């Protein structure tokens, strides 16, 4: 769960679902902010020793972004932009941990789910978005919890001390 484009892709999907409840202009601006911030952060010199913090930030942001789907009211512009900025930062930060930046190309397109999600919402089928959002939240909570387990998870090499 910590390698490749999967964590930032899940975050991009979560922010896409979250922005679906924002007004058209705010959603578009938020999407642009995610892309610009992620691209900028992906080239930041983030040390590998920060990986635990970066991944925790990524999982927490997935939780926050996907939880927006459960709001009854539409998302206002200011919180939409703040959430987008946050998602862009952590998407880029996770990608900055590896030398190749090609994960950006795999992760960022998932944020474009904002348009199909907005269409589903307009059709009154929010339950579909809620199911998807809950699945993303479950993955994020479980992945974040794994960091705190004493047992060496499957994705880490063992006996390295």
């Amino acid at each position, binding site marked *: 769960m910590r390698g490749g484009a999967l964590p930032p892709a899940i975050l991009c999907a979560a922010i896409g679902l979250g922005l679906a409840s924002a007004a058209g202009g705010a959603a578009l601006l938020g999407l642009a902010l995610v892309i610009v911030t992620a691209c900028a952060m992906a080239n930041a010199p983030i040390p590998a020793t920060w990986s635990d913090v970066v991944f925790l930030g990524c999982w927490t942001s997935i939780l926050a972004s996907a939880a927006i789907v459960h709001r009854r009211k539409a998302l206002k512009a200011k919180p939409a932009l703040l959430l987008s900025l946050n998602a862009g930062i952590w998407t880029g930060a996770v990608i900055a941990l590896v030398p190749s930046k090609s994960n950006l190309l795999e992760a960022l397109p998932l944020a474009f789910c904002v348009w199909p999600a907005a269409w589903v919402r307009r059709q009154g089928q929010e339950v579909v978005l809620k199911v998807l959002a809950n699945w993303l939240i479950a993955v994020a909570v*479980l992945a974040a919890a794994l960091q705190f387990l004493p*047992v060496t998870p*499957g*994705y880490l*090499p063992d006996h390295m*001390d």
Partner: protein
Amino acid sequence: MALAALAMTGVGTRAVEAHDFWVQLGDSWIAPGEGTSVTLLVGHGPDRQRSLIPAGRIMRFEAVGPNNLRHDLRSSLQLRGPRDDGTVAFRDPGTYLLVLQTDARAYSLLPAIRFNDYLQVEGLTPALLYRERTHRTNADGSEAYSRQAKAIIHVGAAPYRQAPVTRPLGLPLEIVPDIDPYTEPRPKELPVHVFYRGRPISGALVKLTDLEHDANPIETILTDEKGQAVFYVPPGGKWLLNVIWTQIAPASSDADFETTFSSLSFGYTHSSATKSAP
């Protein structure tokens, strides 16, 4: 339940090969007075990395030279330097054995499936049998473990007969070559004995790894009833022999097992000052 299920999805997806520890020399053949780098490495293939072991856990780092003379080298260790973990140099010609020994305060806790896989892959039969006998094969496995690493370095041009490499040094787990791998003419076969707490052990899995392509060992052999394994070592390159053994931990321990990782590294890389050497 769901947490356990997710945790299990990661379990067993990684091949159990990344945990050997060794002392890597910049050059294994150097001239008298010439320095060569020492790097402490752990893991193989994509997981290979500089060891982050704290200096306080290294109990012994010394060179055993010709005529069994010992030189304490702890002061030459500069852990986590930009490119290596220190430099060693020797004034007198001869073959030296670098010995690094850590305490047993390292701790590992692996999920059951992965722990069983690790025991199987590394041939740790005492632990496998114990877990089967006590019906604990479905339990997570914990170990307290230590590292014992040796590296052979040759100083000067000609091979020397007083090499200390064929004698045990009293490490808890130790690979001891029956012949000096640097002897001339270079032998085609390299027989080694494995000693655990001073006694030869049979059934221990010894692995030979080419350190220039170290994702997988090139040969693995179980020691026979005399504790011996015989390898064919190709000429040239950098090589690692390693073995792991374990015993059931005492009831007072937090861990299930006490495990020892042992390695012996050597190579045929010459410094520029010894290029003309055989």
